[in-house]
């Protein structure tokens, strides 16, 4: 097991965003984090990254804490006008291995080239960032995550303002990561993508949390209870579930693994 969170209370002292959340992440798993705005998704990410401490509860790394965690945050503060080429942005992933003065070793250089090819942006590797489309920039940031080469990868809403082609391409990359034995924690709003690509789901909302398999957790009833969907939207969701192969599961009573 890579990560075990037990009864974590998250947020800022005195005003927890999530009162108690427990979940586990195994290597090769893709964990989707779903929740309404302000439900604590980004706070959870920041807690895992050690940026803010949990209010209470424990966070264990049974196989040892990884040296670094690949992280792709929301791009609100990203500066696209900085004078740097796509290749250098990808190479930023190796930054922590370089220290203050070291140059890229041959192994890392190869990794950068591989990452650019894997994300299909090798042809624009020498372009400055400000000429890229949103999709190309996101591919470049995914290539940086490849270069980081970590056992755990954290992606916070990676497909916001990204076209469908790029989204499905990058979801394929996430599947590959999982197949390589990496664990991925993915904050996502696209429920159909969650059902298709994620092995576990964590539903956050109204200060509560629910963890389990996506089909157990993301039922229409739960999504309404946790404030993610309104009653009127559920009809559409049921249609979508009906289209999925696992249609039987939707009628099952949700198995509550964590409920507080």
């Amino acid at each position: 097991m890579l990560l075990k969170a037990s009864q974590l209370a998250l947020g800022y002292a005195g005003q927890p965003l999530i009162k108690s959340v427990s979940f586990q992440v195994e290597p090769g798993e893709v964990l989707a984090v779903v929740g309404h705005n302000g439900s604590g998704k980004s706070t959870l990410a920041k807690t895992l990254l050690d940026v803010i401490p949990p209010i209470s509860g424990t966070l264990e790394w049974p196989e040892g804490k990884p040296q670094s965690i690949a992280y792709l945050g929301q791009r609100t503060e990203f500066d696209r006008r900085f004078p740097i080429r796509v290749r250098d942005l990808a190479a930023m992933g190796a930054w922590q291995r370089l220290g203050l003065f070291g140059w890229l070793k041959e192994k890392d250089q190869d990794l950068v080239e591989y990452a650019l090819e894997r994300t299909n942006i090798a042809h624009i590797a020498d372009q400055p960032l400000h000429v890229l489309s949103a999709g190309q920039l996101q591919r470049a940031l995914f290539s940086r995550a490849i270069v980081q080469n970590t056992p755990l990868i954290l992606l916070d809403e990676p497909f916001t303002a990204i076209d469908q082609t790029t989204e499905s391409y990058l979801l394929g990359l996430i599947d590959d990561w999982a197949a390589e034995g990496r664990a991925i924690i993915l904050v996502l709003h696209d429920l159909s993508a969650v059902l298709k690509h994620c092995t576990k789901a964590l539903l956050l909302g109204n200060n509560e949390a629910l963890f389990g398999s996506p089909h157990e957790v993301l039922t229409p009833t739960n999504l309404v209870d946790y404030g993610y969907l309104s009653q009127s939207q559920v009809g559409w969701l049921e249609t979508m579930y009906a289209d999925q192969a696992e249609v039987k599961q939707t009628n099952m009573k949700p198995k509550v693994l964590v409920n507080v």
Partner: protein
Amino acid sequence: MFEWLDYDFMKRALLATSILSLSVAPVGAFLVLRRLSLAGEAMAHAIVPGIVIAFVVAGLSVFSMIVGGLIAGVSVALFSVLLANKTIIREDASLASMYLLALALGIFILSAAGSAVPLKSFLFGSILGIGDDTLMLIGATAVITLISFAFILRPLIVSTIDPVFYESQLRRPWIVGHLFMFLVVLNLLGAFKALGTLMAVGLMILPATAARYWVSTITSYLILTFALALTSSWAGLIISFYVPKVPSGPAIVLVAGGIFIISLLFGPQGFRLASQVRRTSKRSAEKKTETAKTVLIQQKRNKVL
């Protein structure tokens, strides 16, 4: 033609501005990249009361000037962050209020104390009458700045491009930003002695904005910023040597401004970029209509055949 080289004061001024250019170039470049150009300008005025009080209390010594300037600069910076966080006004407004207050206070104290140092040298600097102690200050500033930059360059780049990612990867992410702001104040003090409070930021910001129009990698950007700062200082000094009554500070900044305008007009990322984008989008639009036309023609032909 080179008679300006015969004068000792010119040699000193050229040496001082050359070292100053080396030191303020990276600082100015990152002020521009971190969207802090105006904050830098505000800080140049914010240090004035500290310098004036130090001058009135301890006389004309470089050491007291550094202490006074640093205290004033750091307290204005901290206080405006505090105002922005704890009250309704935003950071730019709080910083503007604080520096205006500081600048007025500085000039008020200077005038009230009946200072022997003319106001003009506070406003425009005194690069042509530069003493050994100021030369030492500028030299020490350059050494500290360049050594610090060797250490913080990479984290500074990462934190400027992607602050969210940067914070996720380091234990104490704030160190780099704080050290950078300290370097800004330190360099402002050196620039203040040479160019005065009104022009101090000129040699930092203008070469950095001008250089941005030409290059698109960080290394070439830093080198070009230095080259443009150096060119501006030398050209400005020589101009002020030949044109009587022109203070050297404004002359240097005016040359830097001229370089900025030339870069804006002819640099590949200046106005030319804008017109290029227009041209390509027009061309691609034309192409699209052409393709659409061809498709239509083909469809028609298919029908006929």
